[in-house]
């Protein structure tokens, strides 16, 4: 059973490894995807897009209270 699982994992690994090796246009596309995802998560998310409520309050009760106050103070 264990042997079968390892064989399966090896086959899947080889499938992907061979696929990536034989890429032509795909190499540039993967580079683009990785750069894009890195910009999004390592730059934009980290430095520019905090979750405001999670950052400013510790508990859900405090967040609910903050949202209630904000919503009712806006009129």
């Amino acid at each position, binding site marked *: 059973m264990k042997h079968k699982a390892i064989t399966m994992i090896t086959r899947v690994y080889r*499938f992907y490894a061979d*696929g990536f090796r034989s890429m032509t246009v795909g190499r540039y596309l993967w580079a683009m995807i990785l750069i*894009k995802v890195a910009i999004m998560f390592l730059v934009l998310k980290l430095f520019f897009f905090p979750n*405001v*409520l999670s950052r400013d309050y510790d508990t859900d009760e405090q967040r609910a209270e903050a949202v209630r106050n904000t919503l009712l103070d806006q009129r």
Partner: protein
Amino acid sequence: MDDLMNVVDWSRWQFALTAMYHWLFVPLTLGLSIIVGVMETIYYRNRDAKWLAITKFWMLLFGINFACGVATGIILEFEFGTNWSNYSWFVGDIFGAPLAIEGLLAFFMESTFIAVMFFGWNKVSPRFHLSATWLTALGAALSALWILVANAWMQYPVGTEFDPSQMRNVMSDFWAVVASPMAVNKFFHTVLSGWVLGGVFVVGVSCWFLLKRRNIELAQKSIKIGGWVGLVGIVMTMWTGDGSAVAVSKYQPMKLAAMEGLYEGKCGQEIVAFGILNPDKTVDNEENPYLFDISLPYGLSVLAKHDANAFVPGINDLIDGVELTAEGDTVATDSYATRIAMGRKAHEALRAYGEAEKIGDEAAMTQASAALAENFKYFGYGYFNDVNEAVPPVALTFYAFHLMVIAGGYLLLFFVVVLFLVYKKKQWLGSRIVQWMGLLTIPVVWICSQSGWITAEVGRQPWIIQDLMPTRAAISDISASSVQITFWMFVVLFTGLLVAEVCIMLKVIGRRSKEELVNEKQ
């Protein structure tokens, strides 16, 4: 207040920018995945190497578009947490659940089978490969489903109950959310519009091949598939558009009135086929809404109510809370003044609930909760000081809607003509006029697609959640300058991606077109 308005405006521009850029890529993924599936199915059935080469060519373009578009929607989720934190909290798991399902199931399904699509030739059986191709298309459609379910809930909030203690809407009926008429129509209308866009893209690129006199056979065969998928897509899009119109007339009648620039409704209402709005017209004056219009008698009553004599309310009718029966009898509905009063009562009840909760007064909490429940359906109107604040931007909604309809009509004609030529008058495909027509229709379909989104999203203003939360109440307490910075970063990032996609596409199409694709050795 000025600062708040700036934050709202910048955040809206930012969201519109990211959503519209994202939507440049998504419909092509939806459409091309189906077209590639059809092409591979033909290959699977006849094992003709030409069809394999055709499938591989369009699959490559699908891959380029997928790579450029993938993850561009994630930024929208970042914006919810930062710019729209009140909204994000208020919607609770209504938004979270569909997006989580989308992320876990559909996106991973799509990504997994894409690997088999591209890496699996000669490594998995043809049947398994074909299944992977169709499952990729299904995964793309499922991704769209969950996003559109969430969007539809914002347009028609059902299946939820507001919990004043959590300050969140809690899902009470999952299926009411998923199968709401707004969600069903929006899903099919949007996904099928992707088929149209994919169809035009394939026909357009194939016309470029014909223009260059390269790979004529590939182009002609591709035009047939693109033409059929596009024709089925446009017919079904129009059909589901009719369903959308009925749903909008029922649940967002103000949006429908804005789409038509209609201020005073009547029984047997005509529809404006083409018109120019009078910029001086407002809800407060008696000016003619149109400087010029060509209208079809009874058209709007038929479209919105499926009844030629039905009453379609205009903006002023909705504000005044007046409707007529088909027989002409007046029926009173909740006027906007009443809604504002009820909204304010809901606000006061919520405030009282919060104060009672702080001191643990259960009786007062129960009383406040009951008052809130009674008035909650108009909670969002409590933010308005004037009924005019509840009117969407009429001009942008009107022109976007009519642009979409006119472009959609052209696309129907386009596919009929293309299929007629490719089956009955193939020699005419050699005409440069026909070839240029095919090529120049590519931008038309994107304009049509974007116009549809503008109609849907601008037409529902001032609401972020229909009747419950106006856009300005949804905003976080952040500075306008921080949103401006990220807005311009997105302009650069997305424009870069778009330029990259177009350049890679053109390079690949140009290079591959010079090869004898259908004689490719397999």
